[in-house]
């Protein structure tokens, strides 16, 4: 991994923030979210130029060699700006899986194009149950000599309709394995799913006798998938913390300027106390996300616990903050043109991806049990 100094990080955050101000404003988000692809290729190229899409890719493969700390930071900014992009799928989940598998050939073949933004990859994990566990996998792989074919359905595939490369998690008689499939292969049917969060894209993908290249792993494949999801959860935690912060700032600003009964509504205890509670939620989410990133970067023994904690704490904080924010704004936030609901939609989506809060709380308790 490359060494990022705190100055490097600060500069990257600042540059990204400026980029998103200029090219990822609320108006840009609204324009982009109603397109089919749901992302802005021009902005994607700028993100690539800034090294964001390849941030996690090793330098040997043309990436920035960043790690969890850097991507968490990037995602705070992405969350604050409601960035519409497949970054989570290609730059984090797919990169994490490819780098974690230990398949040098696949890494060398796929990572450079992901890093330079020319190919978009994603990972198909869960089936129609929407549970991101080994039991939830909905695709089965059958072997015939050296050839594998895939059958079944993957669903809730993030940015599945944009992907040039699908990394498919499938059951085999010998356990979970990972396969590489091009969506154009015969037997692959990619159906876009309409999402409540209009800034997200999800797909259901049917596989019917699809020939697929197995990406052998030098370790149990599900472990590598779980690790990639852990990396994605850290990234999501950052997005949630950043989103919560943006909503809090927006809400506090409104509470200072909106006057009712001859005074700013933020002077009323009801509003003031809600704002204070949201501040605590937001600060805690930020701490949780950054701590999880640091633990994962340093591979500490409690990294798994820290990630589970961040997963539910940040998910709940983002939902609570956005939901309360609408109430605090009153009627204005009940309109489509106000951004509050866009954040609520994102918060509700983020709270489901890769397992909901109850699931992560249970995981967290299991870690606590092992530590106790």
């Amino acid at each position: 991994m490359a060494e990022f100094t705190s100055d490097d990080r600060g500069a990257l955050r600042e540059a990204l923030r400026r980029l998103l101000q200029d090219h990822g404003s609320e108006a840009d988000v609204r324009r982009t979210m109603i397109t089919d692809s749901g992302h802005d290729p021009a902005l994607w190229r700028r993100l690539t130029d800034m090294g964001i899409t390849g941030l996690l890719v090793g330098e040997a493969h043309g990436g920035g060699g960043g790690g969890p700390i850097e991507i968490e930071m990037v995602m705070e900014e992405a969350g604050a700006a409601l960035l519409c992009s497949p970054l989570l799928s290609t730059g984090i989940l797919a990169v994490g899986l490819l780098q974690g598998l230990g398949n040098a050939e696949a890494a060398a073949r796929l990572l450079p194009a992901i890093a330079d933004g020319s190919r978009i990859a994603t990972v198909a994990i869960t089936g129609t149950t929407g549970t991101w566990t080994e039991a939830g996998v909905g695709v089965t792989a059958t072997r015939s000599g050296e050839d594998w074919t895939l059958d079944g359905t993957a669903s809730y595939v993030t940015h599945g309709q944009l992907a040039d490369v699908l990394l498919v998690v499938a059951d085999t008689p010998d356990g979970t394995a990972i396969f590489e499939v091009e969506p154009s292969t015969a037997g692959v049917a990619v159906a876009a799913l309409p999402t409540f969060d209009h800034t997200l894209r999800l797909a259901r993908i049917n596989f019917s006798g699809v020939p697929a290249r197995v990406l052998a792993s030098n370790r149990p494949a599900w472990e590598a998938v779980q690790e990639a999801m852990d990396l994605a959860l850290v990234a999501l935690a950052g997005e949630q913390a950043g989103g919560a912060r943006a909503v809090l700032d927006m809400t506090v600003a409104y509470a200072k300027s909106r006057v009712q009964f001859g005074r700013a509504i933020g002077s009323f205890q009801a509003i003031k106390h809600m704002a204070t509670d949201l501040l605590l939620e937001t600060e805690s989410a930020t701490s949780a996300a950054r701590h999880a990133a640091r633990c994962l970067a340093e591979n500490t023994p409690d990294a798994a616990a820290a990630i589970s904690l961040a997963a539910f704490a940040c998910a709940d904080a983002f939902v609570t903050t956005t939901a309360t924010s609408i109430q605090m704004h009153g009627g204005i936030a009940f309109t489509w043109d106000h951004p509050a609901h866009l954040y609520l939609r994102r918060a509700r989506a983020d709270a489901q991806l890769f397992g909901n809060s109850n699931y992560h709380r249970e995981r967290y308790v299991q870690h606590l049990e092992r530590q106790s």
Partner: protein
Amino acid sequence: MSINPTDAELVAEVREWLAVNWDQGRKHDPEWLGKVVEARWAVPRWPTEWFGRGLGDAQARLVEREFKAVGAHGTGQDRSNLWANTALAYATPEFKAKIVPALLRDEVKMCLLYSEPGAGSDLAGIRTRADSHGDHFVVNGQKVWTSSAADADYGMLIARTDWDVPKHKGIGFFFLPMKQPGIDVRPLRQITDEAHFNEVFITDATVPAANLLGTPTQGWEVLQTALAYERSLMGDRARGPRSGAGGSTGDMIGLAREAGTLGDPLIRQDIARVTALRTLNGLNNARAKADLAQGSSSAIMSLGKLAMSRILHEEARLRTSILGAASLLEGPQFPRAEDANFLTLNAYFTSIGGGTDQIQRNIIGERVLGLPKEPEVDRDMPFRQVRSG
């Protein structure tokens, strides 16, 4: 029409009239309503000068019961017709004579022009102005959260007529003609991606002085009367699931069974908790009605909207829990997700609309528990000096 009829006489009269005039296939059109008005069944509690019979509440309910028994519409407007009641109470004789029968016959469409972008919780802070020009007023300003404004013939408007008195004391209440050039009605897109409401931009619109209800600065009082009528009618205005397929909004058991999560102990506890909220609200309302029937007023009535707000938010949250990842989706293909997401957003209609939960808590704390009001910084200040934003 008999004067001071006995119950039996009254029932006989209304039955006979219905037998002659009502036929089942009949539509509730102005023609039918015209007959009802003419026969003095529309507003039997009202005085005889105004299409009524001067009946007491008990007898008027007998009339309503007979209408209901045959499925006929149009009576009981002395309770239910917000517009006519408000006009009857405050309009000038000339305007009343024109508008009241039309309202009873449902010949004019109405809308409410109360809230403004700058006056939501603080309705008395409106800044739409109505400037007197002798026989008419000229109105300028912007209203919001208006239903049915595009079709309306008149809007019940509150507007500021005097800027040099405290905020509650310089407001006029008007029947503003809506079909005129100065009025621009635009649909207001909600977070649910529906448009049940409008914004209304008013630029140099005119309203005859005769359309003023009460005096030019009595509008706040008129408004309180109108709001009281509205509240007494409101009941539970919350809407059910959009898909229409969710069955009873309270049937979380069925939803969880269908989603395969009914065995989850966390979901089960949550179902108990949330179902209880709705059931308790029903029990509270039943108790309030029983109290009222016994003549003692009940604190519980006032709690209904606040309780319903919590129920709707909690039910939406529970639906989301039950569905899990399926709640990521929307659209007619995914009706359960559509319901959960729509209800999540639409719950704010109840927790914000018609007074936010926070305002409701103020009102209940003050009116029901008798807790003292907060100091109001702008209460006695000339409105011109009141801070806005």
